[in-house]
């Protein structure tokens, strides 16, 4: 592992907390997975307005009286 001063941004990401047991062989699979997940989010991001926030979800559920 390179010294922290020698690390590239990619090295830093690959040595984030929790990742030490991830083998190099797994990294490419994970990259595909993360690309897919982020791609789904970004493909729907046009639905978002500047003021939309996560807490709006509770209000949506409460909107309609049952």
């Amino acid at each position, binding site marked *: 592992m390179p010294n922290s001063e020698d690390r590239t941004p990619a090295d830093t*990401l690959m040595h*984030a*907390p*929790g*990742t*030490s*047991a*991830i083998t190099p062989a*797994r990294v490419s*699979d*994970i*990259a595909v*997975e*993360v690309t*897919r*997940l*982020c791609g*789904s*989010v*970004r*493909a*729907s*991001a046009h*639905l*978002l307005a500047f003021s*939309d*926030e*996560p*807490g*709006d*979800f*509770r*209000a*949506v*559920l*409460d*909107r*309609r009286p*049952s």
Partner: protein
Amino acid sequence: MSEDCSALDLAEAAARLADGRLTSVALTEACLTRARTWQASRNCFIHIDAESALAAARARDEEIKRGHRRGPLHGIPLAHKDMFYREGRVSTGGSRILRDEIAKTTATVLRRLDAAGAVEIGTLNMSEFAAGPTGHNIHYGPCRNAYDAAYVSGGSSSGSAVAVAGRAAFGALGSDTGASIRLPAAYNGVVGLKPTYGRVSRHGAMPRSWSLDHVGPFARTAWDCALLLQAIAGADPDDSTASMRPVPDYAAMLGAADLSGLTIGVAEHGVTLDLDIAAAMQASVRQLEKLGAKVRRIVLPDLSAAFRVGETIIKGEAAAMHRQWLETRPQDYSNSVRFRIEGGLYLPATDYIDALRLRAVMTAQFIAETMAGIDLLHIPATPLLTPTVAESDMETKDSETLLTLFSRLTHFMRPFNFFGLPAVSVPCGFSSAGLPLAYQLVGHPFSEGVMLRAVDVYQRATDFHRAAPQL
């Protein structure tokens, strides 16, 4: 349990306890006997606590003798997924990591069931950390299907479904983050209810994904589910996501003669179903229509975006909560669970937050467009027949192939965790291999009573839920 006793529903057992024809001790002994028998072949329990259960049953009987009956759950033997904390007791979460972890608090749902007088006979097997739709577990062994041990039970609340199907408990609690109540309920021929997000407190329930976790009941009938939901639902100062909405009297909403006044949207989803499942779906729609429901065909939007955006939330939250153990104890996870979590370590925070923001927007859109003009949405529980234990073991099979299979198994379920809408899995037939089939009903927010009313009417006209698996 005598044959007559084992055939009782929770509500019937409660009635016999109330009028003195049965005692809690007798019911508990009967359930314990069945629990031991079923455990030997299906591995549905992690721990059976006969001594504690019988002590509680004796106490409940003494109360009844003194004229104090707490309600319909008084003296009723139940068992729950091993992820609901009880102070001073180990809750394994189906994991090796928590095998010796003693809980410091008691889950709100357990406190409420205790207050209602229920008797807990043990803790139930589950997928490791509630992750996995099949019921495999390398630490405690796989839980197997109640109807055929060669097949999976479904997960992650595997033991909850099998124990209820096997008449080892009159009801059970589970949790559902992506299908984990409804899929095992479907595979084992029992009713599994995922309530609206916030209807039931999550306090003291081991988390899988804080935003998508739902706690709910398993039982053999809608009526029994109503009794269990009544006891556990409602606001909780220990869970800020628990809704302040008043809890209706669910049982009072049941017993309708028919489904008149109810409009059920039948999903046209474009997904190829197994032939047995397709036939069962059509038959269930015909039955609901015959019972008086107005049926309307609904073109279902593509749910894959809701599926994937929801997956982003699960992965991000799971990675955050497991990060420390992934660093210090990676060898104590199964490969399948560790693989499912690891991707979340690399998700940009902005994408996770956008996924949460999208949840509100996409849920509002789904309710306004797809649920408009209907009370309930009818949709298959799953497009695929139950896999065998051998063919779906991620520790021995190609993980990418199986992850694709798991996505297909939960295709019709996971989006409703993202939307937070209530959904119930309803037994509606059997495959040519003799395994249970089920449909789902999805409701508007906080419309559990409407859903249970529909299932109650359906069950009084059909007998699929009366089938009892044999060992």
